[in-house]
């Protein structure tokens, strides 16, 4: 039932409305709304009950194992939420003067420093509001750099075919042409093709390392050399930073610019879609182009650097300073981990993934890259099952829900047919991983004996399998009841 179906005309939730009506007769009639917007008219309890019950229809980290590859669904410490929601932080206006902002600025400054250190970059801006915006900032900086060097013939960005969709989409937004680089059978970038594609048109390359295939790009240093020698820059998509946090620094690999998804590696919550934060880090030569604002410290006082201080900045990305509340959460998390804790993140995320990969292989599932180590995630292909039994990755995914596990990422990356990209994260314990593999085995059995069972799944969710095609064909995007 929709909230609108609970609405009754004339109902007012009095405790939430200012008590007196105000005439506003100074606003001429021509500017005034003729009719009230048909928002729901419900009591406070109706709203609370409605949304509390809706919430219960979700899977989430706080209720389920959620091994969604590339998404790093790890535990979001409750302390990060509570401490970022302290009244002093919530009430601060973005334009508050610096003398009323030192507490907040201190957190932001220290977060910049932590991110610099753990990534091995020269400078960090916290401005981007998600990974994709970080990518935008990064590629726009590459563009600004070439422009500043009067090197504007560089019109292409190289992107491996395994890359996340935001990479090519971002390149386009920055007006670059996208050149795809194929992946070889072992999951590494095809170096020969790379060498052919690279050249004076190359503005840069966008790489995810470990890649979205769940393997570490072994020739990263060679790639860096090839691209750099051609005059291009290297962009690091930090979505998979969890795999190497505190162990390997993108700066050491030769990257010029990186973004980090704090809502992955730094455990800020995904919130059913967002918000996130996508800080960018850069090497020395890109520093002048960083997005503003930045937090600077002079003696023991903090202040913001804006366009005025940073004339070459690629610009401002939000009305104020990005997703501050998310940054606070990441700061709290980073301080709780500390330097040793970060390294452990990478280690145990990797341990969990390799352990699950070993179990899955034993259970008879085909690995996409059986000869390789898993990083923090790995890929299983259900091509065989699809061919032999007529059940596909989606059927497995839906059936998993019935067993109380969120499905892994399906059909991404596109390279591997019928793939499941599985990322357990470091915060899950062995029992859960064992349980998941057992259930996968059970489903594989079901697929053999009763494939229709899988096709009809899920059975225990609030709805049965939804008709996506109808949704796109008979568009119903707003209630008109």
């Amino acid at each position, binding site marked *: 039932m929709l909230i609108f179906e609970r609405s009754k005309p004339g109902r007012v939730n009095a405790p939430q409305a200012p008590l007196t009506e105000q005439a506003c007769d100074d606003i001429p009639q021509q500017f005034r709304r003729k009719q009230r917007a048909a928002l729901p008219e419900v009591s406070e309890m109706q709203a609370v009950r409605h949304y*509390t019950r809706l919430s219960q229809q979700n899977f989430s980290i706080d209720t389920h194992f959620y091994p969604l590859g590339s998404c790093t669904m790890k535990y979001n410490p409750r302390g990060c939420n509570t401490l970022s929601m302290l009244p002093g932080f919530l009430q601060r206006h973005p334009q508050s003067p610096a003398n009323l902002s030192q507490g907040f600025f201190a957190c932001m400054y220290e977060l910049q420093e932590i991110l610099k250190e753990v990534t091995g970059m020269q400078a960090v801006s916290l401005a981007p509001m998600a990974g994709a915006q970080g990518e935008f900032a990064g590629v726009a900086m590459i563009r600004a750099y070439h422009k500043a060097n009067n090197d504007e013939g560089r019109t292409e960005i190289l992107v491996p075919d395994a890359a996340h969709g935001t990479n090519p989409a971002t390149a386009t937004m920055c007006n670059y042409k996208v050149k795809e680089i194929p992946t070889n059978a072992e999951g590494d970038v095809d170096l020969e093709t790379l060498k052919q594609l690279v050249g004076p048109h190359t503005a840069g390359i966008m790489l995810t390392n470990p890649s979205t295939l769940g393997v570490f790009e072994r020739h990263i240093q060679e790639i860096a050399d090839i691209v750099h020698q051609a005059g291009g820059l290297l962009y690091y998509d930090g979505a998979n930073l969890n795999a190497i946090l505190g162990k390997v620094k993108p700066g050491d690999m030769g990257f010029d610019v990186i973004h980090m998804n704090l809502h992955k590696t730094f455990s800020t919550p*995904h919130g059913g879609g967002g918000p996130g934060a996508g800080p960018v880090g850069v090497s020395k030569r890109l520093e002048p182009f960083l997005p503003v604002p930045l937090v600077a410290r002079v003696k023991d006082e903090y202040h913001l650097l804006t366009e005025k201080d940073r004339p070459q900045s690629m610009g401002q990305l939000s009305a104020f300073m990005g997703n501050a509340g998310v940054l606070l959460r990441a700061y709290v998390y980073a301080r709780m981990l500390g330097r040793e804790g970060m390294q452990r993140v990478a280690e145990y995320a990797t341990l969990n993934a390799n352990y699950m990969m070993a179990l899955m292989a034993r259970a008879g599932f085909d690995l996409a890259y059986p000869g390789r180590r898993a990083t923090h995630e790995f890929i299983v292909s259900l091509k065989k099952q699809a061919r032999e039994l007529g059940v596909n990755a989606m059927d497995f995914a839906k059936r998993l829900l019935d067993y109380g596990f969120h499905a892994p990422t399906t059909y991404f990356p596109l390279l591997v047919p019928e793939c499941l990209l599985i990322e357990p994260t470091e915060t899950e314990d062995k029992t859960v991983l064992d349980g998941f593999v057992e259930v996968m085995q059970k489903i594989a059995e079901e697929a053999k004996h009763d494939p229709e069972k899988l096709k009809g799944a899920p059975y225990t969710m609030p709805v049965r399998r939804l008709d996506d095609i109808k949704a796109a064909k008979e568009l119903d995007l707003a209630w008109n009841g």
Partner: protein
Amino acid sequence: MPFIPHTDDEVREMLETIGVDSIDDLFDEIPAGLTAATAGRIPQGINEMEISRIMHERAGQDARTLCFAGGGAYEHHIPAAVWEITTRGEFYTAYTPYQAEASQGTLQLLYEYQTMMTRLTAMDISNASLYDGASALAEAVLMAVRANRKSKSKRILVPRTLHPAYRKVAHTIVHNQGIVLQELEYDPQGGHLDPACLPADPGDVTALVIPQPNFFGVLEEVDRLTDWAHAHNILVIAVVNPIALALLTPPGEWGEKGADIVCGEGQPLGAPLSSGGPYFGFMCCRKEFVRQMPGRIIGRTTDLEGKPGYTLTLQAREQHIRRSKATSNICTNQGLLVTAATIYMALLGPQGLERVAASSHANTRRLVEKLGAIKGVSKVFERPYFHEAVFRFDLPLEDILRALSVQGIVGGVRLTEDYPELGNCLLVCATETKTEADLDTLAEALQRISLRLQANRCPVQPKMA
């Protein structure tokens, strides 16, 4: 180990299963030179108790101000229920609802949100959020370029009465694609874009951006501007404050045909000021542009048994399907803020929202009267406004603001940098959260400070004669 559940025994078993001796072996494909990273400058880990202390202290440092700043971020009362429900684990720690059947909570809520936004704006379609108001405008500009098939110019008219940061952000995001934002001057008396000054023949223009209210709080002649644009095949992008819409004509009803694309900052709907974010950008449009819309959209459909349910739809617009040809690169959006906004709107209802708007405006009106009575302070623009107004100060604004801040008062948003031609100007806002006593506190503080500054400025000079 913080947030890692493994016991030593388990680690041993797991390594055995994998067939390696140590965790370090799992990193053996990484070139040796790379794995020697240290991060010595990062402080050692501390526990929740210790970071609690730090955060309580820091939050305390910045707390308990009396805030009259608006300028795109407004302090409204947020019902307690909003964030108590929003931060429930099931909303707070869910991912994007890719597995629809296991995400009906988020999906139905987003569908309800979309419905609320179309009703508030009187538009056909709403997406499920963008990052913030400023970046939403950038996306609206890109969308207009895609949608206006009659225009080839990529020329967008942007009045200077639009929020300066929005102009900057839009420029940052769209200029690489050769899109030009051409600024339109405002009327110095009215503080608005005077429709009479618009060219009779503007040439090939892709879109006109119309803020309502504008950055100065002033109301624009939205009907005439919209009709002018449409008469020249120019799409209209409305930038609106959702709280204001409880009182003002919704963009879908501007002029003869209504705006084409509507966007804005969702913060006033239940998001705390929180140093500027996370907020959310909303975007609505007319039905015919739905396939040009960036960001996620939720659709209502049915399940195998014919029961209604909700799912992400029109994904072919998005980067994960369309890649380099997507309508935008946006992936993660601001879902949790939309959750808060939906609950906020449900708790307020149409009448509550109207009262919030009216009461904010009434407070600002009272403040206008009080400040107007102070010597050396004058209201700048004379046209109708909504809940925010510009004041000019005879004395140096910087000194005044500093003096206010020492008393914990955030006096407003300074306009000097972005509008040097206005002189010493301050944008001031009093929402429904302000009491009469608060307004007096500001007025009296300004009075006192003015007198003091006045005195310092003209030190009693020994009369010469």
